[in-house]
């Protein structure tokens, strides 16, 4: 159930260039699943006005803490990055349908492919997959070395490969270049990242089940305003889906790429 809560900042740090890791404490953590997101109001004033949808990177139900990782690039996220320990943040969530952990059979293998700031939600997903005995392979693409993060965290969960556009870390190129080289054996793939990456991945693995997480500019975040619409493929009954409330994760083949 979606709730609105004033959560408390328990940690915040810059973990890569303009990339922040923010941990918040509150009741709504108990409802969270991997792949869902929170809709954060960064200021109690009207400037900036709208909430920011940010994916959930880590869920700690025992401590009642959720961690989000975001790029402080625009006005809203820059304000969010100034929040100090003890500050209150207005959070609406958890929102949307996340990654289906159970889609990968126990003892099976999952391929997790992320691009840039699309990598964070794959962390909680990987943890939960590993918890049910699934082997995970992580393939992540970034623009350059100084915006990469969580290499150690992912490495403890499974094989982790980085690729950068400029070659400053890992292989040079895109995730599909690396996938071609690695040719991994797996049962299901999960992905979050820019549209060209999702498109490439869908074409790359036509015979494998896959789940893709999308992003789009949002208004309300709960499905009422019709801002974050994606067209669906011809096989679908509905003409469109809403990224916020129908997604953000869809089985491959649902959204027109």
């Amino acid at each position, binding site marked *: 159930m979606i709730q*609105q809560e004033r959560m408390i900042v328990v940690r915040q740090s810059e973990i890569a260039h303009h990339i922040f890791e923010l941990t918040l404490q509150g009741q709504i953590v108990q409802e969270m699943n991997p792949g869902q997101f929170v809709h954060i109001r960064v200021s109690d004033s*009207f400037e900036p*006005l709208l909430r920011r949808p940010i994916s959930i990177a880590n869920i700690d139900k025992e401590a009642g803490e959720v961690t989000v990782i975001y790029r402080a690039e625009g006005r809203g996220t820059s304000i969010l990055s100034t929040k100090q320990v003890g500050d209150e943040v207005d959070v609406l969530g958890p929102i949307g349908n996340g990654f289906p952990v159970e889609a990968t059979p126990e003892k099976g293998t999952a391929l997790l492919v992320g691009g840039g700031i699309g990598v964070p939600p794959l962390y909680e997903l990987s943890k939960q997959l590993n918890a049910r005995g699934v082997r995970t392979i992580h393939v992540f693409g970034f623009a350059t070395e100084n915006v990469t993060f969580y290499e150690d965290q992912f490495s403890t969960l499974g094989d982790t490969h980085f690729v950068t556009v400029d070659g400053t870390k890992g292989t040079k190129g895109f995730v599909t270049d690396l996938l071609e080289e690695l040719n991994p054996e797996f049962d299901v793939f999960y992905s979050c990242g820019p549209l060209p990456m999702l498109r490439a991945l869908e074409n790359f693995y036509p015979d494998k089940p896959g789940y893709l997480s999308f992003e*789009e500019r*949002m208004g309300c975040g709960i*499905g009422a305003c019709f801002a974050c*619409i994606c067209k669906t493929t011809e096989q679908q009954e509905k003409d469109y889906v809403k990224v916020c409330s129908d997604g953000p994760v869809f089985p491959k083949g649902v959204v027109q790429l």
Partner: protein
Amino acid sequence: MSKLNIQLPGLELKNPIMPASGCFGFGREYAQLYDLSKLGAIMIKATTVEKRLGNPTPRVAETPAGMLNAIGLQNPGLDKVMSEELPWLERYDVPIIANVAGTLTEDYVEVARRISTAPNVKALELNISCPNVKHGGITFGTDPVIARELVEAVKAVSKVPVYVKLSPNVTNIVEIAQAVEIGGADGITMINTLVGMRLDERTGKPVIANGTGGLSGPAVKPVAIRMVYEVYKAVEIPIIGMGGVTNAQDVIDFMSAGASAVAVGTANFVDHFVCPNIIEELPAKLEALGVTHIKEIIGRSHR
């Protein structure tokens, strides 16, 4: 005794607060958050004869203390609204104001004729002010003669009172308000969004795929207040005011300027509980003003 109930043509409002059309879908999403029966009324999303898929994305862009949108009247079409959305809303004790949109006069007439027969639709809101569609919409709302003729045509078929939603994108809004009053409108709702544009810092091109979008949010409130103030002086029919309402004080302001009730739009995206919160805050606000019933403040700017 309620201090907040308001009577308007076709509408027995428990309180003068209602979500504005396009900001609340058909209520299902917000019903997950609170009891919709708390609301004075609900202005449902614009309905057209055929379903509409709306504009390409991006459809929204944030602006200082506001936002632009160009959704493009996406809706499931009259049949689905009649067979699925309106019956679903019957579980709530709340009057529905159906926003009616179209491309041609015949479209408006067809939607009005049928949707006004739904048991919970207590009034229509004629959308002659949508800035985000290529045909219809705003073209009906910027010419007083065309606006009046459309109102006459819709009034001839509607089973419930007809309110007309005015566009602020005109030189003289009073002229349009008077024209729709002559055409037989039972009330006015105002204002729709102001046409605006935001450019991408890097490319210099519009952020919204449609190019232009409608500006809403706190940034437009002074424009809306001024227009309600002017129209109140010029017409006899009641006004439902809107434009940047975020709290109980904004409601007091709109009603002081001449609105009999107030709609809340963009603020629903920021504080998803804003409507019930305002309803809860209003009695204390009235007490501070020494007012026993909210209707006493309607038009007080002019007294």
